[in-house]
């Protein structure tokens, strides 16, 4: 080989900024940039790529991998734009008809995806028996009735995460009727048990395929234009990476990757595996917990654009406090925000000659920060000082709500507004402010590992140890399939939930395996 392939390009699309970093083989930051996030997202991504590879020391021919954490899918669902028309098929009658598909969805979202849905006979019991035989004829009739009106198909069957046969049979019919190229999302590949939430996620996934293809095309084209020939990976909601073709099949998994990237980036920049992470932005601060090297996951159901899904997302506590949060003197005392000057901080804040008191000005007055162009004009001292007390108590309260156990934890601070965070916080053993804190998210994408998850309900009759070993082997196999190096895969999570009201010992086992990218 004429040149070495030893650089990685990490990109993270945030609400305000799109960041890009180049890391070398030893994960040293070679170059970084922050560009404004564009309305269409893609323009900002292209600008960030152009800016970061133009920096000295970046030999674009040496870039082996490009990792993207993006909000394209989230925005498409929230804005109901560029979504495919989807034929929604549920296999499960005579069970599972008491709630029809898409019931409870926002009407505009149903309209955006066409609202075609049907329930046919079939599906499985938890123990593998058929509820009733799969109704191939009714399935064929439904797909025939929507021919020409849909661009994608979403198929869910009762207990498919354990027994996928009926979903696979329905997919064969979908391709026969609607063409071999029709987009098909199968629920057993997308989510775990909980029919309605899994079906919802499957429908959104099918609807998002066009968006995912556009992003993939835009990114690969942009890379080609810049002479970068690299494998492309997408960041997903658990802080790990998936291959480009996988992201096109499962675009819904990109939703929630931002907080995951910031927590993983903070872990990498400090070398910690367990700590609290604060990502301080312009208008809000996200607190997340780093446990065993990964973000702690939320316990509550995740709502995407008004639709309930059963995705696991990082457990994030967001508070309305960022660098641009406005300080107001009221008759009863000082109040903070929740509004912010946002990206206009360098023109509107007092420390930059503006006229709006912000919490950044409070931090400057107290000597926590030395940013800005001029001292704040007189007359704001007391308000800013009270404001900083409020800031400190908000942070202390958030820390207390996030951390577990009696012991103190380390707090890693990243993001543009991190000067707000004081050095001493109750319950915090030390505050870590790593280099490159401002681009932690893009770094998080660039250093992320590849994962495989296995989540099914199984009989515990063969014995707990054997059942869990088998589950771990499945999770490993999935990680390898996604591109992980087989030599370095670790099992990072084993969850076991026994099922009530069944006399046979049956449990839901969920295992996650992760490993670094192979071929690096």
């Amino acid at each position: 080989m004429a040149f070495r392939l030893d650089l990685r390009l990490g990109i993270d699309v945030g609400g305000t900024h799109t960041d890009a970093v180049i890391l070398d083989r030893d994960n040293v930051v070679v170059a970084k940039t922050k560009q404004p996030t564009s309305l269409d997202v893609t323009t900002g991504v292209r600008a960030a790529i152009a800016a970061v590879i133009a920096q000295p020391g970046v030999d674009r021919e040496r870039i082996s991998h490009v990792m993207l954490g993006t909000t394209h899918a989230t925005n498409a669902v929230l804005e109901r734009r560029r979504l495919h028309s989807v034929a929604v098929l549920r296999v499960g009658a005579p069970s599972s008809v008491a709630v029809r598909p898409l019931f409870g969805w926002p009407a505009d979202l149903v309209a955006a995806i066409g609202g075609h849905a049907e329930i046919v006979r079939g599906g499985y019991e938890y123990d593998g028996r058929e509820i009733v035989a799969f109704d191939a004829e009714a399935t064929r009739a439904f797909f025939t009735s929507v021919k020409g009106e849909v661009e994608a198909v979403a198929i869910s069957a009762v207990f498919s995460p354990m027994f996928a046969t009926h979903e696979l049979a329905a997919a064969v019919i979908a391709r026969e009727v609607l063409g071999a190229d029709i987009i098909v999302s199968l629920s057993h590949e997308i989510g775990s048990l909980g029919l309605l939430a899994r079906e919802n996620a499957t429908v959104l996934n099918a609807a998002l395929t066009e968006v995912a293809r556009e992003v993939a095309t835009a990114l690969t084209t942009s890379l080609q234009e810049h002479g970068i020939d690299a494998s492309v990976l997408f960041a997903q909601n658990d802080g790990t990476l998936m291959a480009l073709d996988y992201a096109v099949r499962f675009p819904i998994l990109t939703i929630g990757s931002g907080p995951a990237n910031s927590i993983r980036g903070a872990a990498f920049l400090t070398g910690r595996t367990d700590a609290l992470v604060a990502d301080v932005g312009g208008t809000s601060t996200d607190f997340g917990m780093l446990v065993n090297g990964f973000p702690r996951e939320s316990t509550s159901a995740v709502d995407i654009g008004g639709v309930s899904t059963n995705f696991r997302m990082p457990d994030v506590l967001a508070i309305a406090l960022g660098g641009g949060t406005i300080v107001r003197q009221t008759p009863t005392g000082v109040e903070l925000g929740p509004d912010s000057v946002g990206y206009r901080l360098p023109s509107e804040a007092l420390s930059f000659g503006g006229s709006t008191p912000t919490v950044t000005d409070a931090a400057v007055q107290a000597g926590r920060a030395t940013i800005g162009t001029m001292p704040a004009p007189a007359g704001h001292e007391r308000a800013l000082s009270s404001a900083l007390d409020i800031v400190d108590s908000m942070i202390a309260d958030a820390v207390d709500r996030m951390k577990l156990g009696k012991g103190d934890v380390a707090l890693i601070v990243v993001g543009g507004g991190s000067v707000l965070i004081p050095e001493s916080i109750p319950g915090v053993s030390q505050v870590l402010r790593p280099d490159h804190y401002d681009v932690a998210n893009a770094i998080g994408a660039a250093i992320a590992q590849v994962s495989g998850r296995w989540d099914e309900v199984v009989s515990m009759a063969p014995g707990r140890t054997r059942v869990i070993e088998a589950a771990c082997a499945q999770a490993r196999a999935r990680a390898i399939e996604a591109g992980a190096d087989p030599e370095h895969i670790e099992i990072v999570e084993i969850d076991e939930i026994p099922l009530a009201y069944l006399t046979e010992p049956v449990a839901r086992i969920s295992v996650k395996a992760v490993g670094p990218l192979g071929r690096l």
Partner: protein
Amino acid sequence: MFIEAGDIDALARGCAVLGTGGGGEVSTEALVARQAIEQYGPVRLVTLDDLHDDDIVMPVGGIGAPSVSAEKIGSGDEVEFLRAAVEGILSLPVGALMAGEIGGGNGLYPIAAAARMGLPLVDGDGIGRAFPEVHMASMNVAGLMPEFVVVADERRNSVLIRPIDGKWAELLARAVTEVFGGSAAMADYVMPVSRARGAIIEGTVSQALRIGRAVLSATNPVAALVEAVGAVKLIEGKVADVERHTAGGFVRGSVVVEGYGPDAGRLVRVEIQNENLVALEDGAVLACVPDLITLVDSQSADAVATEVVRYGQRVAILAFPCAPIWRTPRGIEIAGPRAFGYDFDYVPMEAGHGVQA
């Protein structure tokens, strides 16, 4: 009074609180109820006084593993199969439906069927909360027998059980449910209004609605909930440990909550058998069955079910008094701490601060 589609969210929240960790998932049952009301119209909520003495009340509910019923949802027809079976046995029409248990998804269970069949729903239930076993019913406390039990599935299968007592009703119904695929519909303690008087716990549907509305309209949902049910907040903190295992067809285990803020330094352990049974601190009983112990999210006051409680979750533990019938000697015998294998006597939650277990 009618239950409209717009009432379901509040009712579901109230039922979840009264579920004390069990009673089945509410979110799916809430969708089932809403869809049926939108399709067939609102459900008339009646008191026993609104009905005739010989009108037949059919208590219904789902039986099985909540994780199965979240995956395999009902057909909506099961209660009609139950009614057909019951009317065949009694040769009398069913006059009203009632929730067998108000706690959890089962509190919402009869609503869709009532809407579809145009039957009124009794404002009351057979427990006033959730309990894991069929014989733990206020009708049993009042001396009624579950003379027959009908279990039905979505395929139109139904099984008639004629048990010798409540415990056999439980064993047989559970065995049938497993064959049906781990979830089924059940009617038990079918009775005329005259016998329901004093044997059911009246007013619990309105109570659940009131709880849900109080929480939904509050700026401080936990405080509003405490006030709405007359609860004591035992602790607010983080779930520091969760231990769960299956034994005898139930999830058993415990949840430890470590206090923060004013409760920093305290640890409260809740012991579970599907529902939350006992709250302990330093070996002392703070509250126990049949009083209600509910874990709620510390921000939203949403009830946290036994099967989803997780390490790190931020919760408040609330205890509030059960219906008076449970505090009778027979009520405590059937569903007090000794009925669940504990070697201590019932401690009313109002007094339960520092009584050694």
